[in-house]
């Protein structure tokens, strides 16, 4: 039972708060000899595993470090292209660390504004007049819940599909926002939320919701 992350999006679609709550994913580091039995390919700015899943290294995992030095996108720490480096038998045996690539803050900003647009499209596609936007997005590994207030702020929570009580959690987050962000006179509206009390109380609320498990919070 887990709540993975919380996003708060302002009226214009900009991300004003983000919290990742899941435990850090385990990275796998292994030593390989030539030839490499994994198929790697470039994807966006990274080198990812395309085929040859084994031992905790899954398809989609990115190359995080080579021989202990973190890679910089598609290039090693000393500037060589990763795929070229791994294609050269002289560099073996080599120790490579694979893991799930974590979203950078820029990527999160982009995804938040994309979701904001999809939300608006969702309410317009509806055959009924005055429909709300996207309330839930379901996949096999997580559920995304979204709550838009009457003032236009969106609270988005990504959680385990079996986690219940997210609706009341979203309302609780709204209360926490109206208390610790809005009542802080030094917080300007629509700007990124940098309030310590907001962070603390949000984490507390997430823990309460997680403990309640699949039956929702007791109250």
């Amino acid at each position, binding site marked *: 039972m887990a709540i993975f992350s919380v996003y708060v999006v302002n009226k214009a679609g900009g991300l004003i708060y983000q919290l990742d709550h899941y435990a850090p994913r385990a990275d796998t580091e292994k030593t390989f000899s030539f030839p490499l039995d994994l198929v790697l390919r470039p994807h966006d700015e990274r080198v990812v595993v395309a085929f040859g899943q084994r031992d905790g290294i899954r398809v989609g995992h990115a190359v995080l470090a080579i021989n202990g030095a973190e890679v910089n996108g598609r290039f090693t720490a000393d500037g060589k292209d990763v795929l070229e480096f791994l294609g050269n038998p002289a560099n073996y045996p080599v120790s490579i660390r694979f893991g799930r690539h974590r979203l950078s803050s820029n990527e999160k900003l982009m995804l938040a504004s994309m979701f904001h647009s999809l939300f608006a499209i969702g309410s317009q596609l509806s055959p009924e007049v005055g429909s709300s936007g996207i309330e839930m997005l379901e996949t096999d590994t997580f559920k995304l819940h979204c709550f838009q*207030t*009457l*003032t*236009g*702020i969106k609270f988005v929570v990504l959680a385990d599909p079996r986690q219940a009580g997210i609706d009341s959690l979203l*309302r*609780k987050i*709204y*209360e926490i*926002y*109206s*208390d610790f962000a*809005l*009542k802080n006179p030094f917080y300007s*509206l629509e700007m990124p939320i940098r309030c310590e009390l907001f962070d603390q109380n949000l984490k507390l609320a997430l823990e*309460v919701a997680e403990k309640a498990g699949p039956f929702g*919070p*007791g*109250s």
Partner: protein
Amino acid sequence: MSRPPGRKQENHKISRELFVLTYGALVAQLCKDYEKDEDVNICLDRMGYGIGIRLIDDFLARSAVKKCRSYSETADMIAQVAFKMYLGVTASVSCSSAAGNEFSLILDKNPLVDFVEELPAERASLCYCNLLCGVIRGALEMVHLAAEVTFLQDRLKGDAVTEIGITFLRKAEDRKHKRNK
């Protein structure tokens, strides 16, 4: 204010006298800072606006009300729910225009003026509670309802009751829809 029982917080009650005194001190200081009554009124309205844009989310979060579908529903919501929640009094609503966009909220008791009898002679056109007008205006603006809020009658000025007039201006969304057609 209602808070869910799970929260471990001491009951934060501040005395009403302190609140009324604070408001009085605010108005008194503004009167010292500005000579003209109009300036004081504008300043109070602006302060109220700053409060209103933040208060609306607090109101919506705690009262969990549904979206109002008409101006009269909105006026009722302000008079019965919001006033009760924040000032402890309710106001009565009357619609004062055929177009259905002008409303009056009539307050029998106004806690802010509990200790004020009447305005001094040199401050005859001061709207003592103009902060409330700003709060209502700011709150409505955040839910996309532009409105003009003023005091129509004021007990402090010798009228029988205190009356706040809310005039809903044409919504910007209506204009957008017309353009799309």
